[in-house]
């Protein structure tokens, strides 16, 4: 085949596909080239100059960008290359605020790792440092430009993957800064709080707005009944923080750890996911049968919701009115649970543990307080939970598995798979035959909506109706899909959209894997494995089979879509301007 070229890297002949880069070719030959700004499929700009190699040109070239060609001779390692890389790294370090010991990324910092790999003991070129204000006004994301090394991974993910473009490169030269338009606080921009910038950041320039202190504070108060709920994606990834291989579900240990932190109860948000299917499924059937607004689009992902409010304000009627599972659960805890347990709802403090930074913003939405109290009081990300477990000195790996608490302690496999892209759709499709005909069909593993492809489509015949469904994850894909819907090019009944690529398993609040891992494996697929494994192991796998949920309807809500469920479990949306004039004039 002529689609391969032969080149020489460090004297070794390497065959590489046409169109591949020197970095890829070197990797295939087992030659490691250091990288920093490069993030596979996200950021390829050749900016950081760590991967420079000698291709015989006037200056060294970035291996991450340089295309292979027949007969190309590459040297990846020579005293001159090492010294040039080293000086560049020293320069980056010289302009970086090196408060490593107190940095959120201490020991998980890619810059720290490089400095160690390069055996840097002294920085020869210290000089002026930047002194920018920290933007911590967003409820979700904190930006510290003084730690930023301008690799632009955050910009690329925000602009190219999410098509949000809330941050960009501003100003020039030494004063170059990643910031929002007009240097506005992030909270005033169309930022959707997805936090993909955080997981892309190699250093501590981006982090979640921490709720840890507030949660410790609540836990220390005797008068509060502090309960936790955990989303499905958390158990699929938190093990990574404690040395488990990616994709290892650690549900039992996680529950045990949370209890050890002092929470009165630990609940499973999956129960609310099952509840969501009951409500949303009913909503879908209603819209199909009564010629309501279609397609119906899921509303679980708060990043997606804010994106829709900014970018498709005329399509808010397409969104399901269902609250997200986190808020359904919160409302449930402060109504049904409070009544059942005889606890004053004002004394219930709900902490959500989420794979998500946008959930922090969602929890603060004023409209999400249908009991008169906020549905959710504080949101911790998966990372924050891990930090608290470590801070409390809990030996996570040696904990005995424990179960979620009742009365909402049971969930189905359908609730679990909410954590991966396509999961909500699959859960809905598992229950849809029942909603339409009162009977289940044989479909339980609906593979067509699984997987990491950006946009997935499915057409299933259920009770004589050809149900057309689509799934998008990552907001760039969502935008493509929405534009198709808007132009009339596509006519779906039901659409699932998750803001983060891969869905919640790769949410902005999840453990951060360095580029060295992300560039090698597909994190989305690996983490999803844990989700689908847990689903497979459960005996109940359809939401409408969940006995706790059925009991809730029996005891409290009467039926899906009832007046009470509308009051507590449903919400509305707000059209938002992208850059309102009064915010831009500074």
């Amino acid at each position, binding site marked *: 085949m002529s689609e391969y070229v032969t080149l020489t890297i460090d004297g070794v002949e390497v065959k590489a596909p046409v169109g591949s880069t020197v970095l890829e070719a070197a990797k295939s030959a087992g030659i490691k080239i250091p990288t920093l700004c490069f993030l596979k499929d996200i950021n390829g*700009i*050749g*900016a*950081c*100059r760590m991967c*420079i190699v000698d291709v015989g040109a*006037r*200056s*060294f*070239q*970035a291996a991450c*960008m*340089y*295309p292979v060609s027949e007969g190309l001779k590459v040297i990846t390692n020579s005293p*001159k290359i090492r*010294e*040039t*890389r080293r*000086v*560049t790294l020293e*320069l*980056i370090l*010289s*302009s970086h605020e090196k408060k490593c010991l107190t940095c959120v990324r201490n020991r998980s910092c890619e810059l720290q790792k490089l400095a160690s790999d390069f055996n840097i003991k002294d920085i*020869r*070129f210290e*000089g*002026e440092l930047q002194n920018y204000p920290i933007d911590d006004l967003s409820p979700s994301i904190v930006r510290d430009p003084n730690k930023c*090394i*301008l690799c632009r991974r955050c910009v690329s993910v925000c602009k190219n993957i999410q098509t949000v473009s809330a941050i*960009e*490169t501003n*100003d*020039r*030269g*030494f*004063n*170059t800064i990643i910031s929002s338009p007009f240097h506005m606080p992030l909270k005033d921009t169309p930022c959707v709080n997805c936090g993909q910038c955080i997981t892309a950041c190699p250093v501590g320039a981006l982090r979640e707005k921490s709720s840890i202190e507030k949660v410790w504070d609540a836990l220390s108060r005797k008068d509060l009944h502090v309960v936790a709920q955990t989303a499905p994606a958390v158990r699929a990834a938190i093990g990574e923080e404690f040395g488990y291989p990616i994709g290892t579900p650690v549900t039992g240990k996680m529950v045990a750890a949370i209890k050890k932190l002092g929470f009165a109860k630990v609940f499973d948000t999956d129960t609310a996911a099952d509840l969501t299917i009951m409500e949303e499924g009913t909503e879908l059937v209603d819209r199909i049968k009564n010629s309501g607004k279609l397609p119906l689009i899921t509303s679980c992902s708060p990043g997606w919701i804010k994106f829709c409010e900014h970018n498709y304000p005329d399509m808010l009627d397409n969104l399901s009115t269902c609250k997200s599972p986190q808020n359904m659960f919160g409302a449930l805890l402060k109504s049904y649970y409070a009544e059942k347990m005889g606890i004053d709802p004002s004394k219930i403090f709900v902490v959500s543990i989420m794979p998500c930074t946008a959930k922090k913003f969602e929890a603060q939405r004023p409209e999400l307080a249908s009991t008169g109290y906020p549905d959710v009081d504080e949101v911790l990300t998966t990372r924050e939970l891990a930090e608290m477990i470590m801070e409390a000195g809990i030996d996570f790996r040696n904990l005995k598995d424990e179960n979620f608490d009742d009365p909402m302690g049971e969930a189905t496999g359908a609730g679990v798979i909410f954590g991966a892209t396509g999961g909500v759709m699959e859960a809905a499709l598992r229950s849809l035959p029942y909603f339409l005909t009162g009977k289940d069909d044989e479909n339980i593993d609906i593979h067509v909506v699984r997987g990491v492809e950006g946009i997935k489509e499915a057409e299933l015949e259920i009770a004589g109706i050809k149900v057309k469904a689509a799934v998008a994850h990552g907001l760039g894909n969502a935008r493509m899909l929405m534009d198709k819907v808007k132009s009339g090019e596509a006519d779906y009944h039901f659409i699932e959209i998750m803001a983060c690529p891969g869905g919640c398993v790769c949410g902005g609040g999840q453990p951060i894997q360095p580029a060295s891992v992300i560039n090698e494996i597909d994190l989305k697929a690996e983490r999803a494995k844990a989700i689908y494994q847990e689903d497979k192991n459960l005996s109940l796998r359809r939401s409408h089979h969940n006995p706790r949920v059925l009991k809730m309807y029996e005891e409290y809500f009467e039926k899906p879509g009832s007046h009470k469920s509308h009051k507590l479990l449903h919400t509305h949306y707000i059209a938002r301007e992208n850059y309102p004039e009064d915010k831009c004039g500074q």
Partner: protein
Amino acid sequence: MVYRSHVLICNGTGCTASKAPDIMTRLEKELAAKGIEKEVKIVKTGCFGLCEKGPILVIYPEGATYCHVKADDIEEIVSEHLVKGRIVKRLLLGDKDAEDVARSLDNVGFFNRQLRIALRNCGVINPENIEEYIAKDGYAALAKALTEMTPGGVIDEIKKSGLRGRGGGGFPTGLKWQFAAQEVNGVKYVCCNADEGDPGAFMDRSILEGDPHSLIEAMAIAGYAIGSNQGFIYVRAEYPIAVQRLNIAIKQAKEYGLLGNNIFGTDFSFDLEIRLGAGAFVCGEETALMTSIEGKRGEPRTRPPFPAVKGLWEKPTILNNVETYANIPVILLKGADWFKTIGTEKSKGTKVFAIGGKINNTGLVEIPMGTTLREVIYDIGGGIPKGKKFKAAQTGGPSGGCIPSSHIDVPIDYDNLLELGSMMGSGGLIVMDEDNCMVDIAKFFLEFTVDESCGKCPPCRIGTKRMYEILDRITNGKGEEGDIEKLEILADSIKHGALCGLGQTAPNPVLSTLKYFREEYEAHVKEKRCPAGVCKAMLNYRIIPDKCKGCGLCARKCPVGAISGEIKKPYVIDKTKCIKCGVCMDTCKFVAIEKK
């Protein structure tokens, strides 16, 4: 209409700044007052080149060239020259007593050493009138290309001429065109880099202002050669006159059918658009320029792919600068063989230089490649003011370097300059004399690069900043042992590690001054002394007691009262009060004050 006299007035940016528009208005008024406004034609031209002597006004048929003309001189010029036929000798440039006034410039080195190809029409025609350009063989080269030559034939001719890019790197123009022509792609673009950004350089501006049609014609020829129907001129918004004249020229060319569909009745169509740059220096780098045209932040990207393969909007694109294009029509009309006779073995044709700094004739000159630096400075530039000693010439702007006096006889061409550690660049040439501190000069250029770095790659973004900081402390008398070595390490790493040409060449001003003037650096660092007496922090003013007559003038002039003494006895400067302004030294009639 036939006129008995033509008055050409330079309307380039330099002369416009020194009030050429007022002169025009006054001239119109005076001509009307004398009732001869129908007999004398006023022609607004582009730059004559000798900006130092502007505003410049030339009257034909006599060919009298007047310099430093003021509005108040107009009455005399009209009544004496235009009415009575008497030359106003006091305003003449050159030999005021020449028998034939048209020959008064014969011995003016500034003009007689030049060979104007790219600048052929500057100062000759009215750039806002397409017919004047056509009268000077304008658009004949385009006609020839379209009707007598194949696209390949055009490229062969350019290749044969040996023309190299005048914007910096000196890449063979014909080869660049050939690469783009080879690409099989429906859409291709022709771009012009008119984002001239080197400090002190204004070659391209003068061509845009003085002869915009030559650029339009050349870009159409390039379009024909590579198979493109669309061109973009990227010009900095700080060149308002150039932009205005380009707009007029494009409009006229469209009206005359020289742009648009089926040019000269052939199948070839070509259109041109202007894109304004916001003044970022880095947008002169080809990939940054194209990124900027695309509407994005102007930043370079890695190459390959090269623009000839994937350029503007990922389509095959050629980019040449204004001066390169200005050569094209002449080459096609007179032939590559003629062009090849000019210049050196590997650098053919001429090069326009903007000479400035410590030189008498500040201005714009076009010289054959191979002219020596000495000829440029002394014969054309008129030497150095106040008879000071030549120290070095900086070429290539912030990407270039200094050529010391020991190499003053080097024939200027691409390869010689590179070998000396400088480069041709776009043609800025700054002359320095014995009073220039080379460390200070290096710092000046580094400061420019620090400001103009796009911020994308760390070697340039942080490296140039750190180099600047080191230079700053050296020039402030705080240089440390090892600083020079640090500069060298940084310079070397930036040169090899930076992403684009701007970054890779940013250390050149330091490297070349270190190469030729290392002892000046060492004096600053080790002896805390600035040999040229420029770096204030290391200077001390002292009154030499033996020479001081005790007149007290310096004490009276000192703005901070740092000098004291008794009349007729030597005065003393209080170092703690002295702000080193130098007023005392300028004031002293007995040369009794020294700075060290």
